[in-house]
């Protein structure tokens, strides 16, 4: 600031004067007194400043007269990098070498959850009778903790652990009762007489981002990066899809390759594109006659960022086309964890003996989102449509009342998000409607919260309303409400909703990130 100090002071006084003008102007004499007093005060302050200025100039002029403390200690010369590293290594037992470029992170989420279900009970009664499932309240937590080590600008590896429940469905006789059989939830319910809870490997991966793959000038047509990752990792296909297809807890296994490119950059438009190819392992079986199940996944996205007049921030759009081609997934209990004696992950996908009713899953998905900031408020409408292109000649499902489940190949979702949770005081609200046909997507991998208390999956439709508030930069309070009802009126399916069963699910979360 370059204003004279009195300019500020005078301005302040005048503003004060104006604020209290009704009282101050009550009497002219009073007013004149006040002005005189102000003048006097300003004169006094001017004198003080002048005196101080003179004193500073005198001190500057006599700089040599400032006495240094006798017998001062000489500054220690800086130690060399080698000496410093040696001392650090000695004091940490050599840990400094592997701690270098090691980043720790994680989060802890405490959740209260309540369910109100109406409809017929999934107790195997044939034909189903009108019973209502009991309401349920539960407390859960999710703990995730891990690290990522950067070995060079091109190579890093990561490892993380997460909470999660042991199989509840398989019973004590099954070997799977001691395993985690839920690839889409890391929640742990409190209970079981305060026994000690399990922790599992959530991610274990290595990533290679070669410098040689960066081609061209970053301001023009160029390849800005190539990433190759293998192991068990965060799902790269989350970017161009909703949780209608991918639950955010799922950590796929296998490998993927991602390439980022800039197509065009002008003053008002920045056009980027990306492509992802994934080779995911779903089931590996050493048994003769059993085919391994895999997923070949592809996604291409276009990301234009452009400015329009009247808006301070740009409009940021994302269009993505995805193809998910499942290999042998519908056959030979490949949709169970543990094969024929294992735990079903059909989650709403109709079944027929050892196979799923859908002939196969070859899913085509179109995703669109637009981010814009009217008055600085982040707004994001989004939509996704998916169709299982291989469902039309599927096998009828079995059940007490056999329904043809050859339909239900479409799924769609529409939503709107307002706000962003990035720092203290931020608020975010969202609404999403989902319609997920029974054979449209793989029930094992989509949102596990969209349904009752032990399933998510397919053959459901309904609304999801969420509200979040950042209490601090690291602590978030979230509330969610799921209003879900079945699409078809089918009977007894594994983890499927029954007849007219509807779910009201409420969640209250406190999440601490570190």
């Amino acid at each position, binding site marked *: *600031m*370059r*204003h004279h100090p009195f*300019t*500020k002071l*005078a*301005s*302040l006084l*005048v*503003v004060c*004067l*104006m604020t209290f003008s009704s009282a101050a*102007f009550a009497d*002219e004499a009073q*007013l*004149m007194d006040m002005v005189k007093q102000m003048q006097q005060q300003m004169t006094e302050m001017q004198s003080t400043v002048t005196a101080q200025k003179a004193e500073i100039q005198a001190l500057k002029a006599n700089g040599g007269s400032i006495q240094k403390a006798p017998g001062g200690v000489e500054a220690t010369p*800086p*130690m*060399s*990098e*080698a000496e*410093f*590293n040696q001392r650090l290594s000695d004091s940490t037992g050599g840990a400094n070498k592997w701690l270098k470029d090691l980043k720790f992170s994680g989060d802890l989420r405490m959740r209260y959850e309540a369910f109100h279900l109406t409809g017929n009970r999934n107790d195997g009664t044939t034909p189903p009778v009108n019973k209502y499932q009991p309401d349920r309240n539960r407390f859960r937590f999710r703990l995730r903790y891990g690290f990522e080590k950067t070995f*060079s*600008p091109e190579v890093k590896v990561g490892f993380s652990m997460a909470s999660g429940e042991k199989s509840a469905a398989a019973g004590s006789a099954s070997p799977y009762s001691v395993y985690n059989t839920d690839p889409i939830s890391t929640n742990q319910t409190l209970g079981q007489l305060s026994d000690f809870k399990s922790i599992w490997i959530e991610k274990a991966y290595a990533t290679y981002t070669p410098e040689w793959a960066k081609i061209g000038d970053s301001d023009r047509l160029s390849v*800005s*990066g190539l990433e190759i990752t293998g192991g068990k990792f965060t799902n790269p296909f989350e970017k161009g899809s909703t949780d209608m297809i991918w639950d955010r807890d799922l950590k796929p296994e296998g490998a993927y390759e991602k390439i980022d490119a800039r197509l065009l950059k002008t003053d008002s438009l920045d056009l980027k594109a990306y492509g992802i190819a994934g080779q995911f392992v779903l089931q590996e079986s050493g048994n003769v006659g059993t085919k391994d199940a895999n997923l070949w996944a592809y996604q291409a996205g276009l990301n234009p*960022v452009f*400015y329009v007049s009247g808006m*301070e*921030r*740009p409009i*940021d759009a994302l269009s993505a086309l995805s193809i998910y081609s499942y290999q042998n997934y519908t056959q030979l209990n490949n949709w169970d964890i543990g094969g024929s004696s294992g735990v079903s992950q059909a989650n709403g996908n109709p079944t027929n003996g050892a196979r799923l009713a859908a002939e196969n899953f070859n899913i085509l998905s179109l995703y669109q989102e637009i*981010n814009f*900031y009217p008055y600085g408020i*982040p707004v994001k409408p989004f939509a996704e449509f998916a169709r299982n292109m291989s469902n039309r000649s599927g096998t009828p499902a079995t059940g007490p009342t056999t329904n043809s489940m050859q339909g239900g190949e479409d799924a769609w979702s529409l939503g709107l998000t307002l706000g*962003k949770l*990035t*720092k203290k005081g931020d608020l975010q609200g969202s609404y999403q409607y989902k319609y997920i046909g029974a054979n449209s997507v793989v029930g094992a991998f989509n949102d596990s919260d969209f349904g009752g208390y032990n399933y998510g999956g397919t053959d459901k439709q309904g609304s999801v309303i969420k509200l979040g508030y950042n209490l601090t930069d690291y602590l978030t309070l979230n509330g969610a409400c799921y209003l879900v009802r079945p699409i078809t009126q089918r009977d007894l399916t594994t983890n499927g909703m029954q007849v007219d069963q509807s779910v009201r699910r409420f969640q209250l979360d406190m999440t601490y990130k570190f």
Partner: protein
Amino acid sequence: MKTSRMVVRGALVLALAAMIPTAFAAKNITVKGSDTIVVMGQKWAEVYMQKHPEAAIQVTGGGSGVGIAALINGTTDIANASRKIKTSEMDKAKAAGYYPEEFKVAMDSLAIVANAANPIKELSLKQIQGIYMGNINNWNEVGGPNQPILRYCRESSSGTYTFLKEQVLKNKDYAADCQTMPGTSAIANAVSKDPNGIGYGGAAYYIKQPGVKILSVKKDDKSPAINPVKADGTLDYEAAWSGTYPIWRYLYMYTGFKPKGEIKAYLDWILSPEGQKIVEEIGYVPLPLKK
């Protein structure tokens, strides 16, 4: 009585009206980031505020990463950086609703220096890499006397340290016996007293340093040796602009999104001949004139 009261009120209102523009129309601009740019940034701010009294610009250092983090947190209008914004920082910014716009505001030539008594006049990039990685340890390996090489370098938090590591050492580690110095002036002082010393830093700083010589640098064995300073003792801008002197970098400013109003006016001024004149005065290389 009534008239005189009105006159007094009128005078006060006029006085108020005269003061408000200076007191309340000021646009505060905060600038945070690279320590390399902080002195130049403060000079820019000082001169700009003299010419535009309505502007209030606050410039602080802390490092390029700190400035970019502040930009993403919304606590600064402009981030100074002596390096390009990283992809991970871009992703974080986007997640927070920011779309950083990049402005190249100046260039910086990094000089390699030796003691004035050292007969060596030039080194290739490969030789500099070998020296600082500890693979070349005697001056006679690069055509000099049979004397050990004493390496002086900056602290690992320094942008200049990172710049040499990335551009010359190709991201390999410095030799463990590098003597860490707390600033360019400390390196200049050490090299001027050490006949076997080698150091580096902003070229302009070394021009008038006694006891220190700026070495010419060759891109490779076949390239000519180029000195960042001309024979008349001034920085060779052409050498940096054309890239014939190989150790140079851009200095950047980032805004959260496309700048408008006062911030745009300030950045436009920095990029104008007047703003670039200050770049020269501080000792960096101004941007080449647009043809």
